[in-house]
């Protein structure tokens, strides 16, 4: 009984595989209805299922498979043509087989799946009016086994025989038997590309000692066409992997092996480090050899877990067919790079997001035929799936040639949802706006169909892909289509990483996030501060810095002799300041104890070369945390930008303590120098008498918290600002220059009193929030009453 259980299990597993293949083949068959090759393959697969289910006494399954087989045999024999309707019915039959199998898997019995209805449909199809010889159907169906070899004469009686033998031996075939190699001459004759007599005479020449190949002989004697020979040669090549060259291995075993190889990598790292210290050249050589072997072994083990992406793509033709039919659209599917391999666990994780993107592309991307024709395109849309390797990652693209994303509608929707402010839109990159579709609850679909809104939204796609360390992006050209792009790491288990030191501890940074390293010597390269926020000028552009020690809540070190790791995550670029960068090595990622998940800064842990545990930093969460302040500030800056005419503006650059502060020139009325002794006090405020008015003073050094030494000297420099008959004076240390600044070169400030920072004349300069500075000098400046000041006079 237990044996039977095992047999059933194996049967289920194989049948599921076969069914996926049948699905795919049926959809292909619809495209090339004349392919006898495809029909035979489908026929054999379903025949295997029928045979085995009969042996295992799953009578209803057998009955259904038999019905499908009968229809197929008619197609194969050319009794009736392949039509979309036949394909639909056959797919229906496959679905029925599938639900019976699931029922067997769950309950060990066939359950109450309704097959009669399906069989009626199949029979109806066989008796369809297109069929001139309906009476022939039962006859053809009655002897399916005998008929199998008909399409491929060279197969001999191999196929049905083996099925029967194996059924008798209670070992179902692992795969439908692959095609035997057919002689080239036979193929050419079958295809009508050569005459049997020519082939015979060519064969005779070979027997008589002509060493040329058959194709060559035929070609050189002008008996056939080069294209026909090429085609025949391709046909001759085996179509599917042959069962003999592969074995089934338990995935758990592979996982265990992978773990052990991980350990081996660690032990190797430790050993190599130790051996290097001894300096024994013999040992070093052995260690290097060991290192190489370990790397190769690791690569080999990783490969065993790799599967071509075709594995998850194979279900998509069916998905697209069903969906486009139900939506009345015409969609052609193109697959490129289906042999691209990915780690098994990653494939699993990518499956659902990919299916969602494909459904979405068919549903919303590709237009219906009328609209396509109206737009000057062919009625049939093209959906392209593309997979390829790219710099240690695998990129998977889902591209459609549909209408493209409507950026304006997305922007409008984002504003409605409160995700963006209207003023932000004009300054935003088109792609950034498009990326809003990945926000939770975001859908621009004018109507909700049963396809969209099935629980998996774009935000779930994004989360799922990010969970495996990947990224999602979208690009679209109106009228030309949309490309969704998934970037997926090759594997999860072992990553290339940089080890760094920070506050006496060692951390690990995944190398994919690292763009470059900069050493800060304090002279030629240095960290600058924009009102407390550290920045570095990377080739003239400001790079915001995050101090790792500060981010981790540790004691904050100095700015000299440190390294900046330029990192990229979530589309943001920033510099991570660490004490030392040690080396790159391959580390095995260990899941971190669940209790640390909440901290969010760690992507995992690893065992370092010295046996200690090292924490792997989660670069995107570091970025998110450190930029939270910026995001809120950005809005205020956007406000200001909205009011400015855009383009360049003229700035008055002043020095305040060690800092450079810029004031928009159009708000400046006059520049003045006041003798220090003319400054008087009114209440807690400093004032000067100026042109018959009381002019309140505000020291920018106080406002901005830049308490440097008070400058010695008899005079103070002030910037006078007037509006509506009132004036205030901003005290600076020195007027430096007037400069032009393009508003784009800015970064947003992290501090009150400033609207941002910019590089002006090659130096970091802070942009003053003038309104705030004025209110600090005179809280009533913008109100009508000047009473307070008058009273004090």
């Amino acid at each position, binding site marked *: 009984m237990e044996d039977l259980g095992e047999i059933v299990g194996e049967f289920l597993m194989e049948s599921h595989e076969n069914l996926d293949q049948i699905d795919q083949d049926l959809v292909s068959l619809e495209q090339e209805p004349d392919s006898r090759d495809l029909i035979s393959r489908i026929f054999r697969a379903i025949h295997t299922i029928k045979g085995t289910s009969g042996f295992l006494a799953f009578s209803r399954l057998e009955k259904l498979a038999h019905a499908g087989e009968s229809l197929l045999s008619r197609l194969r024999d050319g009794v009736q043509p392949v039509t979309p309707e036949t394909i639909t019915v056959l797919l229906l039959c496959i679905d029925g087989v599938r639900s019976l199998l699931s029922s067997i898997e769950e309950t060990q019995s066939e359950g109450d799946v309704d097959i009669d209805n399906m069989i009626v449909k199949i029979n109806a199809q066989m008796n369809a009016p297109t069929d001139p010889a309906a009476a022939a159907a039962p006859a053809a169906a009655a002897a399916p086994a005998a008929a199998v070899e008909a399409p491929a004469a060279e197969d001999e009686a191999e196929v049905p025989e083996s099925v029967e033998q194996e059924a008798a031996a209670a070992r179902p075939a692992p795969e439908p038997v692959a095609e035997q190699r057919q002689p080239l001459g036979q193929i050419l004759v079958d295809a009508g590309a050569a005459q049997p007599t020519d082939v015979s005479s060519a064969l005779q020449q070979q027997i008589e000692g002509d060493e040329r190949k058959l194709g060559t002989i035929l070609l050189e004697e002008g008996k056939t066409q080069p294209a026909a020979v090429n085609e025949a040669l391709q046909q001759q090549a085996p179509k599917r992997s042959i069962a003999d060259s592969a074995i089934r291995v338990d995935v758990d075993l592979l996982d265990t092996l992978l773990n052990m190889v991980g350990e081996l990598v660690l032990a190797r790292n430790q050993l190599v480090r130790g051996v290097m210290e001894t300096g024994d050249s013999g040992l070093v050589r052995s260690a290097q050899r060991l290192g190489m072997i370990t790397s190769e072994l690791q690569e080999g083990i990783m490969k065993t877990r790799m599967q071509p992406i075709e594995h998850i793509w194979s279900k998509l033709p069916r998905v697209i067919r069903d969906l486009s039919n139900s939506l009345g659209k015409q969609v052609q599917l193109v697959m490129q790079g289906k042999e691209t391999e990915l780690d098994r666990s990653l494939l699993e994780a990518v499956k659902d997001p990919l299916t969602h993107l494909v459904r979405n592309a068919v549903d919303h991307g590709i237009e219906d035929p009328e609209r396509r024709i109206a737009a000057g395109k062919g009625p049939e849309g093209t959906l392209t799936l593309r997979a390829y390797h790219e710099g240690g990652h695998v990129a998977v693209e889902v591209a459609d040639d549909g209408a493209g994303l409507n950026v304006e509608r997305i922007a409008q929707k984002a504003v409605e949802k409160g995700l963006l402010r209207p003023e932000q839109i004009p300054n935003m990159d088109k792609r950034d706006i498009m990326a809003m579709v990945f926000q939770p609850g975001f859908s621009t679909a004018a109507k909700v169909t049963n396809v969209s809104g099935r629980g998996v939204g774009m935000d779930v796609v994004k989360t799922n892909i990010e969970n495996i360390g990947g990224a999602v992006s979208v690009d679209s050209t109106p009228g030309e289509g949309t490309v969704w792009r998934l970037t997926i790491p090759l594997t999860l288990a072992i990553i290339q990483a940089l080890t760094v030191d920070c506050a006496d501890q060692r951390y690990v940074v995944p190398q994919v996030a690292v763009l470059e390293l900069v050493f800060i010597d304090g002279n030629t390269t240095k960290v600058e501060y924009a009102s407390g926020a550290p920045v570095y000028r990377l080739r003239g552009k400001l790079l915001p810095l995050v101090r790792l020690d500060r981010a981790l809540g540790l004691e904050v070190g100095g700015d000299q002799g440190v390294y900046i790791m330029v990192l990229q995550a979530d589309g943001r670029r920033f510099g991570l300041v660490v004490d030392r960068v040690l080396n790159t090595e391959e580390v095995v990622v260990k899941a971190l104890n669940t209790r640390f998940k909440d901290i969010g800064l760690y992507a995992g842990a690893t065992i370092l070369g010295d046996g200690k*545990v090292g924490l792997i930093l989660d670069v995107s969460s570091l970025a998110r945390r450190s930029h939270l302040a910026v995001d809120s500030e950005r809005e205020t800056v956007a406000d200001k930008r909205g009011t400015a005419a855009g383009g360049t503006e003229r700035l008055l650059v002043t020095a305040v303590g060690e800092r450079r502060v810029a004031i928009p020139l159009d708000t400046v009325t006059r520049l003045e120098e006041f003798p220090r002794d003319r400054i008087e006090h009114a209440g807690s405020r400093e004032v000067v008498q100026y042109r018959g008015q009381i002019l309140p003073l505000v020291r920018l050094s106080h406002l901005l918290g830049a308490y440097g030494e008070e400058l010695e000297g008899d005079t103070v420099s002030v910037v006078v600002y007037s509006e509506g008959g009132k004036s205030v004076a901003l005290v600076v240390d020195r007027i430096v220059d007037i400069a032009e600044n393009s508003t784009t070169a800015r970064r947003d400030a992290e501090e009150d009193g400033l609207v941002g920072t910019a590089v002006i004349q090659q130096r970091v300069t802070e942009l003053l929030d003038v309104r705030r500075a004025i209110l600090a000098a005179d809280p009533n400046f913008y109100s009508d009453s000047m009473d307070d000041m008058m009273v004090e006079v």
Partner: protein
Amino acid sequence: MASRQFATFEVDGQLFGVEVHTVQEVLSYNEYTPVPLAPPAVGGLFNLRGQVIAAVDLRVQLGLARQALQGPVMNVILRGDGEPVSLLVDKIGEVVDLDDDTFEPPPDTLSGPTRELVVGTFKLDGRLMLALDVNQAVDTYRATN
């Protein structure tokens, strides 16, 4: 009479015990990787034969000052729920067989953080052993101030 086996250990002079079947192993380890921003009761991480184990400082859980993690510290590694977790203790004691009739609920006068971690008191010859609630003891998100 029903009896249970307890693994015992000392923290700050007090004898504690956990049931033996909850303990995976006991070992001394001397290199811990601190986890910045983790709850204070997390002493650090260490490498147990390739597995990353979190060590919970029982002193902090009991409202005492942190263990100075310099030099070897004793770990009682508990099987935990799917993932082993270690308790940092001062000193390892014996494994003792205890009859259920030597058990009493914690005394009413016992208060503070210790009270929440302890399920009861066993009366041993000449000293008392507090039986720890294993789940509470390793819960680093418990309100400890």
